[in-house]
């Protein structure tokens, strides 16, 4: 019985080397298909201006920078805060703090973006702030859950052996929370890739610019290229996140 269960468990968790190749292969196939569609069409001048490698390259860089900077900020803000909120001394402010982050996620990001544009500015930084507000909650919550799900007896035996609170946190709780925290980070990354498309509305660039142009000027091919590229990027980042989780997961779990 036990053996069968363990094998099943391993089968679910560990992908085969071949399994790991499926996602990249599908994504490359989608890009090739997109390339063939574009190459098989006579482009008009509007389409030509948007659908060319140089323009797409700039948009991709803008999109990636938005995603990377906002996720990095989320990481710097939400993980330490999540750790702090799990400390027994912080139990009182846990509820209110979570409520604040809930509001961040509950406000439609497009609304927040517009408000920020009105009261502050347009461009890169307002977009980053909107993305951070939107994607901080999953990381914060996963950090807290990750630490809280650490077996109490493991913490107790650590304390009982004479590890200080800080040592228990750094040597036991955080390493054991890594898989859950990484899942939160991956969620934030994917949210940010998707949400970054609307950053084009406040002049922050990215793939959103291509999509909006396509819609405004009624060029379906342009819209298609912008949306497919966004989707492929989101899936690629999700995939890289999974690889990172696999590699960084503590051994022995």
């Amino acid at each position, binding site marked *: 019985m036990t053996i069968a269960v363990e094998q099943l468990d391993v089968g679910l968790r560990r992908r085969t080397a071949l399994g790991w190749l499926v996602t990249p292969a599908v994504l490359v196939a989608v890009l090739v298909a997109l390339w063939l569609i574009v190459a098989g069409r006579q482009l008009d001048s509007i389409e030509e201006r948007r659908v060319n490698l140089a323009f797409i390259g700039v948009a991709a860089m803008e999109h990636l920078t938005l995603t990377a900077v906002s996720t990095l900020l989320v990481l710097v803000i939400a993980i330490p805060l999540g750790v702090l909120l799990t400390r027994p001394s912080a139990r009182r402010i846990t509820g209110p703090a979570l409520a604040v982050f809930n509001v961040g996620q509950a406000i439609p990001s497009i609304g927040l973006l517009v408000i920020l544009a009105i009261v502050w500015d347009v461009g890169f930084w307002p977009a980053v702030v909107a993305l951070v507000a939107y994607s901080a909650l999953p990381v914060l919550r996963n950090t807290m859950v990750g630490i809280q799900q650490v077996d109490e007896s493991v*913490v107790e*035996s650590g304390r*009982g*052996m004479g*590890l200080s609170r800080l040592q228990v946190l750094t040597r*036991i709780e955080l390493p054991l929370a890594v898989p859950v925290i990484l899942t939160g980070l991956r969620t934030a990354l994917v949210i940010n890739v998707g949400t970054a498309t609307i950053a084009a509305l406040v002049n922050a660039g990215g793939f959103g610019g291509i999509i909006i142009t396509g819609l405004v000027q009624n060029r379906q091919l342009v819209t298609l290229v912008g949306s497919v590229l966004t989707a492929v990027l989101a899936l690629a980042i999700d995939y890289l996140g999974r690889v990172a989780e696999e590699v960084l997961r503590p051994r*022995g779990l």
Partner: protein
Amino acid sequence: MTDTPPIKIRLDKLVKRFPGQARPAVEELSLEIPEGEILILVGPSGCGKTTTMKMINRLIEPTSGRILLDDEDVTHGDPDKLRRRIGYVIQQIGLFPHQTIAQNIATVPGLLGWSKERIAARVDELIGLVGMDPADYRDRYPKQLSGGQRQRIGVARAMSADPDVMLMDEPFGAIDPITRDRLQNEFLRLQAEIKKTIVFVTHDIDEAIKMGDRIAILREGSQIAQFDTPERILVNPADEFVSDFIGRGASLKRLSLSRVRDIEPSTWPTVTVGDDPAVARRTLEETDRGSLLVLDEHGAPRSWVTAEHLQRSSGIDGGLPVATVGSAATLSDTLNEMLTARYSTAVVVDDTGRYTGVVDIDTINEAIRGMRSAERERQRSSLAKGAAT
């Protein structure tokens, strides 16, 4: 009690009051724990035994009172430093799942700043000490071990920095009965070598009787109902609470306190496999026992033969199966063997399996009677002493 060793741990009017609870969990407990002994804290759930134990390493801070370790007041001062001097084993074991067995055991030595070589040598020594192969197990993760093996590593980890004192909270509670029995025996053997001062919490009176040099039976509020050796508690429970807690069969439980080597085995007429059946028949006629014990050429018991067997076969062969016990077996195990083998006599063998004597129901009965009269004797003499002063 002149045989009492020096006091290692002294609890002085220890009180623990949890916020929002009317009654304190531990109410003015004073207890002296002798060096090198296993002290069992036993009592019904909720009696405060675990709370009491956790106050010794200050995982729970006492509300008032003092804890003295080697006559040094450790109630204040750095609790982390105190805990590194005290081994700690809990029922759930709590091995760090993301660390190898070697890393787990190395935790406290690492905190104490031991050199790498010293830690590595200590890790291997400890894995061997708990009966496992260091080369095979040091790089495994806890998940790759069975429950019993994890518990062994838990004990090894608690002993890593060679603490004088160990606290064990129901350490064998979550293990199946057969493995538990084996681990208990192994631990007692180990303790005979290492002679740590151990505070051991359990709710199982049988485990308390088996493992304890001294037992403190606790009632609600961690009040001591009786504090004595297992023998004296069984023979002479202090009050109704204690006798209720011991439950029925105190006499049977006493049988797990004596071992075969403590009593005088009787002898039985024997023959060896190759002997002449005619000689065997004569031996059988001369004895009032109804059978002979057949030994093989190495002196190990093989079977019982009666006159019937000797008539039937030409050589000395066949017969009824033999129940054997080692000299370290408890009388309780021995009795069990007898009942299982449907034969009222168990054969005692030495370490190499050779016959040394037999134990029968009468011998065991005699042993029980002896224990009772010894206890009566003790009570009488202490009464006489009390009257004299």
